[in-house]
C-alpha cells in the first residue's frame, strides 16, 4: 500500500532541501570565477547613503522617460572637463567642486535629477544634499550615472556648456 506523505515528511524533506541549498551556495561561491565575499559592507555604498538620507532615486528607465518628455532637469555633478568629454544629452553641468565657491541653483522649475560617474561616485548625492539644503526639494539622484549610460551604448553629447 502506498504511504501517504504527512506534513512531518514534507517538513523533513524541506529541511533536506535547505541543507542541499547551503552546500550548493558554499560550492558556488568557491568555484564561481566572480565569487563574492560572504560578508560585505554595503552600507558604505552611495545608494545606501542616499536611501538613509531620504534622497529620491531615479532608475535608468525613468531617466530615459524624463529625457524624452523633457520633464526633468538633468544635472552632471562631475568636473567640467569630464562633462566636456561626454555627458548625457541635455544635461547641464554643476560640478560639485564649484559648490564651495557658491552654489548656483538651477533656474529651471523642473525637478532636478543629478548624476556623476557611476554607482561608486558620491558627487551626485553630495550635490543633491547641497541643493536640498539650499531649498530645492525636488531633487533626485540617478545612481547608475555615466557608467550605466555608456554601458547601454546610448548617445553621449560632447563639449562644454
Amino acid at each position, binding site marked *: 500500500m502506498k504511504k501517504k506523505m504527512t506534513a512531518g515528511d514534507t517538513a523533513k*524533506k524541506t529541511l*533536506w532541501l535547505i541543507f542541499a*541549498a547551503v552546500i550548493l551556495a558554499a560550492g*558556488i561561491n568557491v568555484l564561481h570565477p566572480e565569487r563574492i*565575499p560572504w*560578508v560585505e559592507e554595503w552600507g558604505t*555604498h552611495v545608494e*545606501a547613503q542616499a536611501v538613509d538620507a531620504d534622497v*529620491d532615486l531615479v532608475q535608468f*528607465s525613468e531617466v530615459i522617460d524624463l529625457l524624452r518628455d523633457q520633464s526633468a532637469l538633468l544635472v552632471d555633478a562631475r568636473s567640467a572637463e569630464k562633462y566636456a568629454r561626454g555627458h548625457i544629452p541635455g544635461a547641464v553641468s554643476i560640478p560639485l567642486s564649484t559648490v564651495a565657491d557658491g552654489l548656483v541653483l538651477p533656474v529651471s522649475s523642473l525637478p532636478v535629477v543629478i548624476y556623476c560617474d557611476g554607482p561608486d561616485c558620491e558627487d551626485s548625492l553630495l550635490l543633491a544634499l547641497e541643493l536640498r539644503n539650499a531649498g530645492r526639494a525636488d531633487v533626485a539622484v540617478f545612481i547608475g550615472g555615466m557608467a550605466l549610460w555608456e554601458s547601454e551604448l546610448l548617445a553621449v553629447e560632447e563639449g562644454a556648456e
Partner: protein
Amino acid sequence: MQEKKPIFDFKKAINLEYPTEYYIALFLGLFFLVVSANKLLDPSGFATSIFRGHLVPYAFVNITALLSMSLEFVAAFAVVFMANYRRAGLWILVALSLVCAGGIAVNLLQEINTVCGCFSNSVRAAPISHWTLVRTLIPVLAGLFALR
C-alpha cells in the same frame, strides 16, 4: 528475481492522478529553474538586487543572495526532477515568492524607488509598482493551487 529499480521513474514523476496540479508545479519548477540559474551565473548582480531592496541588513546582503538563489535552484530542481521532494520544493518556492512580494510591498509603502530583482536583474527594467507586486503573487497562488 527482483525487478531492477529504474534510475528515473517517469511513471512516479508524472502524477497523472492530479494532472492540472502536476503541470502547474512543473511549469513553476521550470520557470524558477531558469530564473535561479541566471542568478547563480551572476551572484554579484543578484546581491546588488537584494541590496537595492534596502530591507536586509547591509552586512547580510551577500549571504542572503547566495543562500536564496541556491535555495530557489534546489527547490525548483526538486519540483521538476524529484517526485518525492516535489511538495517540499513547492513550499519553498511559494515561501520565497512570498518573501519577495513582501519586500516589494514594503518598498512601495516606504516609497523607495527600486528595480525588482526577483525575476530579473536588468537595469532597463521599470521601477517597482503595484503591478510588480501582483506579478510576484502569481507564483504564490499557482504554487498554493498545486499544493492543495
